[in-house]
């Protein structure tokens, strides 16, 4: 790398407020970003990677997180010593940041053009006409169609990917030396993510910007990084050129993280021949349509979906947001009523049963939800949550508690968890509790709706193993909903690909991955980050 670094962090320490689980959010962190270089900070939640980025931007919450040591040199100037006024000047002109959530980072009541223009209005003396020309120019360079027209559009009128492009445009319009990207593609679909990554890489090469890129996803790291910094519990574990760190990690923690990344190449699995546990025929769900006074636009969230899951089999439904995969799952769980079609559970059709007649079938289908922080009632003990269902179906409290204890042991938690409250557990532990709760009902069908998407990669691997194990142990039919192809490749026997409510491809996992027939499936596979890298092969 040439010359002086754009960003040079030297043994930075940021203290956490008292009562936290460790002393410092970030401890003795040193790293540097040079011109024309992308440095990825990668780590699991709570590793201090975002705190590092926020320290550089001077955006730490005042009085709560306090830098207590080290220096953060932006082109030689220590931003820790900068006045608030100086920091404001630096932000936008010398350093800029893009955030994870493009939905909330833009002001919904201002036009897009206005919001990019605002940066220029604050930091430059340019006249209105020059500014507009400059804004249109940068909007064209981020490959937005018809920038003249989009200038006057409001954020809700454009897609999530386009919003993230606008954020990038606003960040880069003044040619900052340093761009900090905090999980900028985490909230995006995989195909959109691929486009945004390509865009960041391209803009960075053309403008020579130094980029500090924060991510938890090793696929993204493999895709974009020149150098990698691995963080754990606020400390830098390992850093070096991307190729070296990813291929020849020297630290056990790094090796563990990389090995936990699921492979995109599924192992061949024998077809499952068990009896069909649940089946849908022509399942459709239409949202909207005719209010009392106006005709509403209708959305066909699921259109003529036919699927069957056998006992002992895992069927994956993959697709991007809006593909209808969750709608299908919620219909089968009868959390919503399908508009038409049949849901056959053994011999009964539960598609249109009213709630009262549905109850006997409830325990046969159970769901593990995506967000482990919200799927357990925070006011009730873990035990109360687990025994609620069995007791609804007539089990005595003592028997239900006995069952809960043995299930907790089964999912790898100690039975004394029964008396504790959900906030005392980590995300992965809570997801284990949710699995135990579902199993307590002794279901035939288990629906996992993005059940591992909110978890860190190492925890994700454990929960996937657990799901696979209980499937075999209880001979369950598992319907696994995910947007993550890597996860799907690991656990699914068969895969259904959905696009805009329609099933576009359906087949055994290894066939779908190795010889995709539908162009959409191919696009999804091509967009998977780090595809060329071959994660998980060694494992």
């Amino acid at each position: 790398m040439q010359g002086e670094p754009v960003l040079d962090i030297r043994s930075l320490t940021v203290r956490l407020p008292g009562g936290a689980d460790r002393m410092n959010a970030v401890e003795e962190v040193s790293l540097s970003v040079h011109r024309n270089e992308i440095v990825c900070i990668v780590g699991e939640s709570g590793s201090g990677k975002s705190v590092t980025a926020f320290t550089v931007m001077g955006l730490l919450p005042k009085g709560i997180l306090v830098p207590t040591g080290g220096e953060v040199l932006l082109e030689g100037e220590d931003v820790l010593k900068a006045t608030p006024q100086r920091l404001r000047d630096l932000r936008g002109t010398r350093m800029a940041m893009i955030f994870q959530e493009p939905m909330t980072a833009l002001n919904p009541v201002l036009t897009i053009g206005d919001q990019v223009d605002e940066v220029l209005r604050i930091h430059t003396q340019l006249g209105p006409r020059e500014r507009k020309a400059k804004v249109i120019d940068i909007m064209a360079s981020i490959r937005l169609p018809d920038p003249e027209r989009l200038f006057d559009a409001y954020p809700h009128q454009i897609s999530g990917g386009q919003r993230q492009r606008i954020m990038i445009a606003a960040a880069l319009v003044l040619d900052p030396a340093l761009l900090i990207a905090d999980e900028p593609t985490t909230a995006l679909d995989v195909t959109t993510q691929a486009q945004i990554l390509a865009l960041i890489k391209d803009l960075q090469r053309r403008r020579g910007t130094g980029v500090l890129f924060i991510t938890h996803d090793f696929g993204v790291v493999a895709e974009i990084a020149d150098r990698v910094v691995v963080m754990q519990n606020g400390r830098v574990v390992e850093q070096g050129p991307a190729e070296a760190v990813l291929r020849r990690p020297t630290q056990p923690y790094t090796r563990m993280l990389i090995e936990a990344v699921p492979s995109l190449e599924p192992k061949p699995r024998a077809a499952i021949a068990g009896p069909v546990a649940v089946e849908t025929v022509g399942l459709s769900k239409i949202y909207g349509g005719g209010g009392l006074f106006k005709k509403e636009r209708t959305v066909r969230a699921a259109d003529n979906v036919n699927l069957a899951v056998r006992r002992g089999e895992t069927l994956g439904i993959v697709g991007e947001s809006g593909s209808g995969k969750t709608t299908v799952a919620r219909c089968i769980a009868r959390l919503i009523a399908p508009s038409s079609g049949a849901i056959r559970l053994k011999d009964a059709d539960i598609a249109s049963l009213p709630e009262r007649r549905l109850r006997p079938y409830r325990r046969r289908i159970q769901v593990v939800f995506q967000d482990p922080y919200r799927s357990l009632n925070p006011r009730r003990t873990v035990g109360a949550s687990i025994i609620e269902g069995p007791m609804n179906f007539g089990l005595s409290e003592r028997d239900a508690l006995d069952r809960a204890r043995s299930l907790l042991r089964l999912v790898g938690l100690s039975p004394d968890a029964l008396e504790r409250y959900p906030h005392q557990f980590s995300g992965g532990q809570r997801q284990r509790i949710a699995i135990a709760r579902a199993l307590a009902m002794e279901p035939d069908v288990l629906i996992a709706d993005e059940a591992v998407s909110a978890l860190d990669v190492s925890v994700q691997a454990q929960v996937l193993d657990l799901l696979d194990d209980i499937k075999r142990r209880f001979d369950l039919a598992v319907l696994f909903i995910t947007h993550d192809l890597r996860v799907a490749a690991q656990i699914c026997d068969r895969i259904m690909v959905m696009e805009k409510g329609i099933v576009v491809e359906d087949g055994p996992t290894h066939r779908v991955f190795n010889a995709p027939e539908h162009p959409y499936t191919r696009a999804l596979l091509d967009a998977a980050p780090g595809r060329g890298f071959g994660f998980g092969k060694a494992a």
Partner: protein
Amino acid sequence: MSAEPAILDTARPVAARPPSDAWRRLFRHPGVLVGGFILLFMVIVGLCAPLLGTIDPSGINPTVRNRLPGFERTIRADDGTEIPFTFRMGTDSLGRDVYSRVLYGARVSILVGVIVAVISIVVGLVIGLIAGYVRWLDGIIMRFMDGLMAIPAILLAIALVSLFRAGLFSVIVAIVVPEIPRVVRLVRSIVLSVREEPYVEAAIMAGTPTPKLLIRHVLPNTVAPLIVQGTFICASAILIEAILSFLGIGIPPETPTWGNIMAEGRSLFRVFPHNIFYPGIFLALTVLAVNMLGDGLRDTLDPKMAQR
């Protein structure tokens, strides 16, 4: 069947927080302390009125009409003996002791405030839970509530009072009815957001019957906001009762209430302001105290709301 997996990670507290935290913060909040203290004072004054040197608050004495505070005169006590008595807050135009009336008036005001708050919260909670959870009833209930809200509260109260005989009961009904829609709206909005929570859906999947589901998983989320709302309803009920009494359509004038005392003193306000001044001070202090208590409760029970 494979062997049971080893216990991977035992239940290690990730973020243990003492549950008494909210209570401790509550009793340290200045609004709660000051408001609670004043309110407690008013309650004691109302309860102990007979012991605080008062005489019959409704006793008319034509010989001592319209005297200024501090006037002294011997009066006949219940047992027939003549005793000297100081009219600390003067007398009204019928010769009744204002001090006694103000102290006894605290009873009616606080009683009305608390009863109205409790009834409107209970009724509003039930209607709100139903409106928020039973989708097809929502439209019907909420349009009815909108209709109620469209009528000014005082006008509605006047209309309701004129339907019944004026008295404590009809005043309470008259104040409760216009308050209900506000509670219903609050509860409904909470139910609408909570019913989407995955833990509620998990309870549906567990086959929990709807009434149990509402009480066990939805209701607890409404408690903190409703306690806060209850204090504000209490304060406004005390004010509306005073307004109704002041307008002469509330509780009958012989019963001492702060509104009645002020109504009585209205005509001679310029010459004898004490008839309005003393009950006015008590009314303002009580409402202020209840509101301070409510703000304090909101800050501690619902910190998110306080930052707005």
